[in-house]
């Protein structure tokens, strides 16, 4: 949507208070208030509002791609809570005509609303987020019952937006040692897959004081996940698996 496309009689203004920082220009970050015109005849998403703000202030930087909540680009901190800008209706977050946007917390800021996600992806890679099989592949697909496949529901849908891990205090304190909810959800996604043949190896990798056990079950991850997934449950499933393994 373009600002020019909104008929004059259907305009109201809102204030977007946005975290700004370009390391090449700014000594330190600051909050910039941008007053933008939005349509009154329909609700728009926070991402649409950002586009309108960017028309006014082209240097404003944020990531975006699919604009429908499936690519995971535009995770950000909206009025203090992490979420995806593209599937957050403005009406739900507008408070007295104002909305505050900051980058996701806990990761270094590259510029404005863009964070450096290296730490996040490094942790993901540690869980070997791919199917490991040792037996030979059949000529057709590997068989899996619908019930076994259902075990992956609530796990495979993760979009790697980072909303969960960057709202997790344990990840803030130990982003290099605690794998964080997103990576652990993926870990469980492969342990839970009946086709995977590396469960023991995966569990071995998690058996230290930090990787998994730094989760204290406060469930911030669950409360912010834009896909309604439950990393805390996945983490407790892995714990159970580790515990029962020790008993044997």
């Amino acid at each position, binding site marked *: 949507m373009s600002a020019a496309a909104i008929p004059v009689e259907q305009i109201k203004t809102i204030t977007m208070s946005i975290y700004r920082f370009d390391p090449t220009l700014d000594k330190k970050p600051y909050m910039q208030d941008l007053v933008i015109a939005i349509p009154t005849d329909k609700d728009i998403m926070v991402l649409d509002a950002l586009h309108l703000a960017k028309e006014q202030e082209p240097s404003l930087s944020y*990531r975006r791609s699919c604009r429908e909540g499936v690519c995971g*680009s535009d995770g950000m901190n909206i009025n203090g809570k992490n979420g995806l800008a593209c599937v957050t209706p403005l009406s739900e977050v507008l408070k007295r005509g104002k909305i505050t946007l900051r980058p996701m917390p806990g990761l270094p800021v590259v510029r404005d609303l863009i964070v450096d996600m290296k730490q996040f992806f490094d942790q993901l890679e540690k869980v070997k*987020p791919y199917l490991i099989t040792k037996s030979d592949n059949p000529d057709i697909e590997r068989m899996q019952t*619908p019930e076994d496949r259902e075990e992956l529901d609530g796990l495979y849908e993760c979009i790697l937006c980072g909303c969960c891990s960057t709202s997790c205090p344990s990840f803030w304190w130990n982003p290099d040692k605690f794998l964080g909810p997103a990576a652990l959800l993926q870990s469980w996604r492969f342990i839970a897959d009946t086709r995977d043949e590396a469960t023991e190896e995966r569990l071995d990798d998690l058996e230290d004081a930090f990787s998994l056990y730094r989760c204290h079950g406060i469930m911030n991850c669950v409360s912010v996940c834009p896909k309604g997934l439950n990393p805390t449950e996945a983490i407790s499933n892995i714990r159970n698996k580790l515990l029962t393994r020790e008993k044997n």
Partner: protein
Amino acid sequence: MLVNEIINARDLPVMEFDGIIVGGGGAGMRASLQLAESGLNTAVISKVFPTRSHTVSAQGGITCAIQSDDPDDDWRWHMFDTVKGSDYIGDQEAIEYMCSEGPKAVFELEHMGLPFSRTEEGRIYQRPFGGQSKDYGKGGQATRTCAAADRTGHSLLHTLYQANLKAGTNFLNEWFAVDLVLNTDDAVVGVIAFKIETGEIYYIKSKATVLATGGAGRIYSSTTNALINSGDGIGMALRAGMPVQDIEMWQFHPTGIHGAGTLVTEGCRGEGGYLLNKDGERFMERYAPNAKDLASRDVVARSMALEILEGRGCGPNADHIFLRLDHLGPEVVHKRLPGITELSKTFAGVDPAVQPIPVVPTCHYMMGGIPTNINGQVISVDNGEDKVVEGLFAAGEVACVSVHGGNRLGGNSLLDLVVFGRAAGLFIEESMKQGVDMKNASYDDIDKALTRLNKLNASTEGEQVAVLKNKMQQNMQNNFGVFRRGDLMEKGIEELAQTRGEVDSMFLKDKSATFNTARIEALEMQNLFEVAEATAITANERKESRGAHARDDHPERDDDNWLKHSIYYSETKEVSKRDVNYRPKTVQAFQPMVRSY
């Protein structure tokens, strides 16, 4: 060297790879996987983190005769459907290759871990999709689209990313490729690219360059496409003097959510959903008595547009159609179509298990693209003769191999990108084994590829990107949509011609080197404009109606003159014709017939 300086080839650092893949979507990552597994030094250059690529938005599935739902299914029937769907300008050798190699490519994905939905027997779940038939159109509706619920693209893209991690592919994530480097022997010898985060810029040199940059749906104002779909590969190819083929052929998906443009999978109709006009009539029964709501997309989109034009649209402005799913019951809707449920609630405020979804035909897919052979090698046309461009490959939506012709069948895009991403990878792997020399580029060659970037950096005045983009998108939407007409198209072409200068000399106010999205959007805008202009000129030139190209002033298909590919070069802005391949290797060619559903 930073991207915001005026850059001289002599100062530019160089990186070298055996193969580079521009684009980290399905086609790119299938190609890179092949190369990385064969031990070649491979890099994927992706302007977004790979799982943010637009493949992620594909929903309904990947069409392939894997004989799960129907043990008697036959890839030749799939081939027949695809040829018919293409309105007979799909290349039959390529379609034969895609349909027959497809099962291998799909089983490989499953072996990599793609979480397909399953049948009671434990096999991959398949659903019916539009334009599918058994027994060469004589056996009724087929059930051929392999699905992971309605998140097949997401599952496929993530699986390929995972497999590439396992294979040790080098990822240059959030790097932007500016232009191809072409040497004086007309060989492609890599690209100019910069790291978006820091602005560090390089000449990335390679023996093989694969364009896998996806589509360009953002030339229209209403599209299902991601914001990143800016036709970067098409822009790069046209500027380097390569042609595009059948670029006038744009698919309008019947069911984009009204107002938002987000996609609602054809799988909804595959699962039993149907379309209704304001009178509650299942109007597709009138337009396609046999296939009804599962006719080809071009047919359904036109029928919907006609219903709306003739005043039978739904809603206060009679400007959309209803897609009804509630009769399927919440069990089917929530289990088979969970993503659609989520999208409908978010973008239309309706729960499809209870209320119909308001939908309109929405720009969805670019059937045309850079012409290639089945090995992914880019073809240029010289005096009517095909000529392979050395060092350059294309696969996926950016390519036109051509398996979709005038109209793509649902579920064939995911198949296209894995089959031909794989084919390009296999071919490059094999030729590297035979030995390919690293070719060089002169400073002059490299400077040429830096031209537009330097111009943008030097800009001190000019039009803003957003203004130019809105203007172009409105123009394309109004004059090159579902129905086309000569006089309107000419008006549109003239407007584009007037804008061309402004696009070439846009103003980039923000010159920062750090994650400068304004610079990216400016470079993308120039790519979009190349696609828009090519589309407009070629659409006006094809004086017939075929597949997705429907002209009010030339309503009939004209096989005498236009059973041909269109070929367009941006240097001359001229359109020529290229023969369609009617030489499959193992079956008899399917000859043009009247296309009815």
